[in-house]
């Protein structure tokens, strides 16, 4: 019976985890910038959604979710993302996201997102390129 209890404890411990969020600032371009290897997991989706040929990661930050506290993710180029987890249900996270630059709030959103999923926010245009923010909830 003892080994069974241990197995149960290990099983429950393996499932008790804290999810985290990764925010990535991406430049989408048709000019010959090098395709970023860091974005290989997102590139097929980015190509499908935005149609550009090349994607470059300008900045990336991760933060753990939970505790109902706001996490600050500095992505460079003056862009900051604040994320607060309002609630979590199984593998779905209820998030409050604010994308800011300087004193300006570019976007505020509340969304429910499943783990291992991404949401893309198409931001400002720079020359012929676009700035895209990708938010991914990691396990």
């Amino acid at each position: 019976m003892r080994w069974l209890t241990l197995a149960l404890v290990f099983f429950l411990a393996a499932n008790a985890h804290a999810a985290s969020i990764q925010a990535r600032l991406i430049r989408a371009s048709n000019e010959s910038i090098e395709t970023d290897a860091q974005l290989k997991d997102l590139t097929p989706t980015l190509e499908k959604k935005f149609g550009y040929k090349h994607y470059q990661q300008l900045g990336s930050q991760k933060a753990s979710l939970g505790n109902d506290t706001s996490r600050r993710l500095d992505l460079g180029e003056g862009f900051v993302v604040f994320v607060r987890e309002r609630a979590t249900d199984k593998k779905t996270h209820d998030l409050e996201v604010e994308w800011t630059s300087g004193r300006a709030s570019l976007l505020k959103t509340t969304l429910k997102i499943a783990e291992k999923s991404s949401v893309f926010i198409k931001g400002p245009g720079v020359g012929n390129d676009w700035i895209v923010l990708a938010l991914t909830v990691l396990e």
Partner: protein
Amino acid sequence: MSAHKPELMSALLDGELKGLRRLLALRHARQCPLCAAEYRNLRHVRKILKANPAPVAMSDSPEFFWSKVKREIESRSDVQVELPSPKLAILDWLMQHQAAVVTATAALIVGVAALWALQTRKPASVVASHQEESPVQVLIVQTSSELRLKPVGAVAEPLAKVEKVSTAIPNTVATALDSADADVTVIWVSGLPWTPDITQMKTEYANLDT
């Protein structure tokens, strides 16, 4: 179990206690010297009685006695007798059926793990809605993906669902769009100031006012 209960020792010796009561009585017998002595005495008495059974004197011959028993059995053959069914304590039952308990628990673990694996792998459609909070512009987009079904027939779970989206930048609109083919949600912010390069974007956006 702090009080001395000699009858408990007797019941323990007779095997009348089961499960937790038996464990508690045994523990008490180990800890309480008086009850331990009572237990030893009773065991000693039982040992003596077992070694020296009382001689049985029969008034009848064995054949005559059996004929009386047989007659009695025949006379009572119509009487319904309710046989007592033994009742086991949960702990005793679990001890007796260890293999079944282990199998059931293993099956439960496998089932939960399979459910968990299925949940994390569930493909889904995305529903997106948008409600502009800012007084500048309001746009509401409600897609029809809520009604979309997976090819296998099950209702698709959205991977991301935008509940509310807004922007405070003047002349700017934020719209949440679901994706029918890529299983991703995109929030499209239109009307943000355009800049010719990254350096100018940094400067302009740092001084942007809402």
